[in-house]
């Protein structure tokens, strides 16, 4: 079977809904199966990438720690919605990993390059 090009789209902020974390688990599993995978953080999903998350007070696992481990799993195809970043006045210095910005007019063509899109 030919590998499928798969995109995981993350639109939820972390912690408020388990879907944000569950998307990361899918990504880590795909990496273990050595399937080509990219992730795109859109809208409020960009908040997942913030450094300095401290979730001890809400008794949840630290979301950013999972993301910071992505390079160890060779998960490096990480993309961000540049408009969402700008609207929230975020810069790459705020992020726990390196992400590649995509402008609004690039997003549609980017998504269309994949065989499967899993949305969370």
């Amino acid at each position, binding site marked *: 079977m030919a590998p499928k090009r798969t*995109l995981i*789209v993350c*639109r939820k902020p972390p912690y408020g809904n388990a879907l944000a974390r569950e998307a990361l688990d899918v990504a880590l599993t795909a990496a273990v199966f050595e399937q080509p995978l990219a992730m795109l953080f*859109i*809208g*409020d999903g960009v908040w997942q990438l913030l450094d300095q998350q401290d979730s001890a007070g809400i008794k949840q696992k630290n979301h950013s720690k999972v993301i910071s481990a992505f390079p160890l799993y060779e998960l490096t195809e990480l993309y961000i919605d540049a*408009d969402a970043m700008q609207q929230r006045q975020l810069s790459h210095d705020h992020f726990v990993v390196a992400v590649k910005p995509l402008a*609004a007019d690039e*997003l*549609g*063509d980017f*998504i*269309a390059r*994949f*065989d*499967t*899109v899993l*949305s969370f």
Partner: protein
Amino acid sequence: MTLHIVNKSPDQTQCLKDCLRVFRPGDGLLLIEDAVYGALVNSPYAALLQNRPLVYALIADIEARGLSAMDTGSIKRINDKQFVDLTVQHSPVQSWY
């Protein structure tokens, strides 16, 4: 070409607006469940959805919500089998919720 499936009313979440930001000419857009309210010509969001090609809404959801007699303008009403056909004709398929 991508098929976008939206299942929330435009007032409920950002998903329709996010979807339309990435929508390209030639992509398909299917409104299901609460998203069918956006299919109405009298919806505050009609300007975003009317008179675009390849915008569809699920008949079963329109009927269930008492919207059958209301004007859905240029939006094509489709049944469940045509929903399947759309997912065959398009790749990838992206859900927005």
